[in-house]
């Protein structure tokens, strides 16, 4: 039986749509996977010394402190990316296979997923280094086993909270508050959790607790699935309660409102697009890496612009690069209706502009790190609105990846999003404003640099109609190819 399950899994893996690409992308994917494992391995071996040498702190202490956040972030990543096991078991239900076997297979499958293996690449080398550095082997191993148990706990917790957005966002909100409190030195949760993690090392028997807990969670997941292994229970797809909304306040935008209303509904009602909104919020905080001097490599003055562009343009980039793929599910409809391309594009453009302005207002807190930090965000926004908004739409016209709106997977970008043309477009998107700023900064000073970027950005607005015409032309000339590509669903 197991043999069949494994062979089914293998086939679903190698025949998945993401593998059906050309050789170049396959190689890129392998390199990408190796890179991630490699960097985790490197981090695992190197963390000890980096903390000791770089931060002059006790590595084991630091790791135990950070672990609580590590675990929560792991959960967050799983929530968004790890696929639930129920998807592929429907066809098995009609076959003469015992329910227990199906459930064991489904639940067990989650355990050998990439999300669990990845941690081993980090913690096994770290544990080895600990032992080499003279920590008692037995205790290090129990500590590692405890972590392993917790990772598996996360695995099962994710199954339970899957699709329960409220639970998830509460957890994320709490974590952000905790991090803030810790940064401001009001309250440090790691003071409480670090000793807990250390206990697994100090008192080896305690490591049994997370392992037993993981086992209990496994049993719970097992019974939960078994009880719900019916088409109208656990296997039914969840239906959202729909409400017809008119958004009549958008009517002031005239004929544009037709698309604007639709786009707002698209953003609000689909998992994938909600993920994009979430990512854009994360981007707002991206600048912290630069302006708090947390990363030394980013200290050059022109990096400010780099940060400013991402802080204000998170939504612009994550959303804009997939226009028109957002409408891929019903592209034949759009193409057989009398669509006014200009209004279609303009609606997306306005959304990006609104989002950029909102991000810019929200990131006013960067003033805390000096006016330059916020000035970088503001001129970054100007450049985004004037130049980048056009460039992402232009790049999107060449991306023919259909978007499955109902899953949040792949929100971190698609292999096809990285084709040569879009790569080429990152030069004017990011490097050019940095160069412009540098030119101003090193001649007449930083104010001139900022002004120069802003002027360049606003000048881009003059070309809006030209760019829209160009994009329309691309849409028309690529129409059949795009239709064919969108048809190939996963």
């Amino acid at each position, binding site marked *: 039986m197991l043999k069949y399950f494994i062979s089914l899994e293998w086939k679903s893996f190698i025949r998945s749509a993401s593998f059906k690409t050309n050789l170049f992308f396959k190689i890129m994917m392998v390199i990408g996977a190796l890179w991630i494992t490699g960097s985790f391995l490197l981090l695992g071996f190197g963390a000890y010394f980096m903390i000791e040498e770089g931060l002059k702190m006790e590595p084991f202490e630091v790791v135990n402190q950070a672990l609580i956040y590590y675990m929560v972030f792991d959960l967050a990543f799983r929530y968004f990316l790890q696929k639930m096991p129920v998807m592929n078991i429907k066809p098995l239900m009609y076959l003469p296979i015992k329910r227990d076997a199906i459930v064991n297979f489904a639940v067990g499958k989650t355990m050998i997923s990439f999300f669990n293996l990845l941690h081993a690449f980090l913690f096994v080398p770290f544990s080895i280094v600990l032992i080499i550095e003279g920590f008692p082997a037995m205790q290090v191993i129990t500590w590692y086993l405890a972590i392993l148990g917790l990772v598996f706990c996360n695995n099962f917790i994710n199954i339970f909270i899957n699709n329960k957005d409220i639970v998830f966002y509460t957890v994320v909100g709490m974590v952000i508050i905790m991090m803030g409190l810790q940064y401001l030195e009001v309250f440090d949760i790691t003071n409480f959790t670090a000793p807990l993690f250390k206990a697994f090392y100090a008192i080896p028997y305690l490591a049994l607790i997370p392992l037993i807990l993981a086992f209990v969670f496994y049993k719970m997941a097992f019974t939960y699935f078994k009880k719900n292994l019916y088409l109208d229970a656990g296997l039914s797809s969840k239906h959202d309660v*729909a409400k017809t909304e008119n958004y009549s306040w958008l009517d002031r935008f005239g004929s544009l409102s037709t698309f604007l209303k639709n786009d707002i509904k698209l953003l609000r009602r689909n998992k994938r697009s909600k993920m994009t909104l979430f990512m854009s919020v994360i981007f707002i905080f991206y600048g912290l890496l630069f302006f708090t001097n947390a990363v030394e490599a980013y200290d050059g003055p022109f990096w400010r612009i780099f940060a400013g562009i991402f802080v204000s343009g998170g939504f612009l980039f994550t959303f804009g690069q997939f226009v028109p793929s957002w409408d891929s599910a019903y592209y034949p*409809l759009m193409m057989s209706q009398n669509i006014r391309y200009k209004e279609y594009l303009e609606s997306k453009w306005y959304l990006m502009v609104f989002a950029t302005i909102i991000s810019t207002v929200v990131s006013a807190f960067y003033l805390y790190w000096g006016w330059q930090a916020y000035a970088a965000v503001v001129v970054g926004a100007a450049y985004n609105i004037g130049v980048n908004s056009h460039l992402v739409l232009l790049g999107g016209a060449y991306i023919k990846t259909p978007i499955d709106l109902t899953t949040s997977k792949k929100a971190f970008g698609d292999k096809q999003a990285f084709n040569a043309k879009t790569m080429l477009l990152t030069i004017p998107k990011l490097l050019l404003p940095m160069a412009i700023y540098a030119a101003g900064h090193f001649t007449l000073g930083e104010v001139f640099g900022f002004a120069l970027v802003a002027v360049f950005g606003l000048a881009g607005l003059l070309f809006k109609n030209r760019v829209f015409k160009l994009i329309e032309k691309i849409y028309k000339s690529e129409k059949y190819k795009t239709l064919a590509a969108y048809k190939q669903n996963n």
Partner: protein
Amino acid sequence: MITVSNLSKKYNADPVLQIETLDIPKGQSFGLVGNNGAGKTTFFSLLLDLIQPTTGHIKSKDIQVDNSEDWKPFTSAYIDESFLIGYLTPEEYFYFIGELRGQNKADVDALLQGFSDFFHGEILNQKKYLRDLSKGNQKKVGIVAALIGSPEIIILDEPFANLDPTTQIRLKQIIKNLAEQQGVTVLVSSHDLMHVTEVCERIVVLEKGQIVKDIVTSAATLKELEVHFAGTEAFQAEHL
């Protein structure tokens, strides 16, 4: 209304459609039948300029569909679920299509009023997005949306499939009405010979991309089609 000349579509030298000439006059209810892979959907997709012809062209009201987009305002279609926007409620979808076709909310509401029977209380005000409706109900939405804005040409691919018997009967009435009373050119494809013969004035049989029969519907048509698709002499002997 619609003129096809020298049309062919090939995928890697595999011909999937080959129509020398075909004329569909205004106000005709036109039925397309054929087995799987006969080229019905390919023909409709070509008519909507969703795929490119290998040779030849289709003219709709003297507008060559792959050259100009001016046929769009008077043409509407429901081919499959890719004509639905899954995250909208049926009402929102109707209004959206309405706005694209120059109809305001009141116009659309007035039109929908006439279809309350057809919807059977399962479409409007159901607090469901289109993606969560059953296949049959999705089809109802798609078909009615294709009627918004008084189009002159309506293309429906397999409109009877997945519909319950009551709705099938109502749909037949709707299609007949469109052609007979409103002068709309309706193009319908179907696997159900009974339905097409009931609804369409003219039936064209496609086989491996070629037109093999072009019949003006009469009382004998159903029999003729059944014999054709049964395909064997033995069957004919048995039934005659």
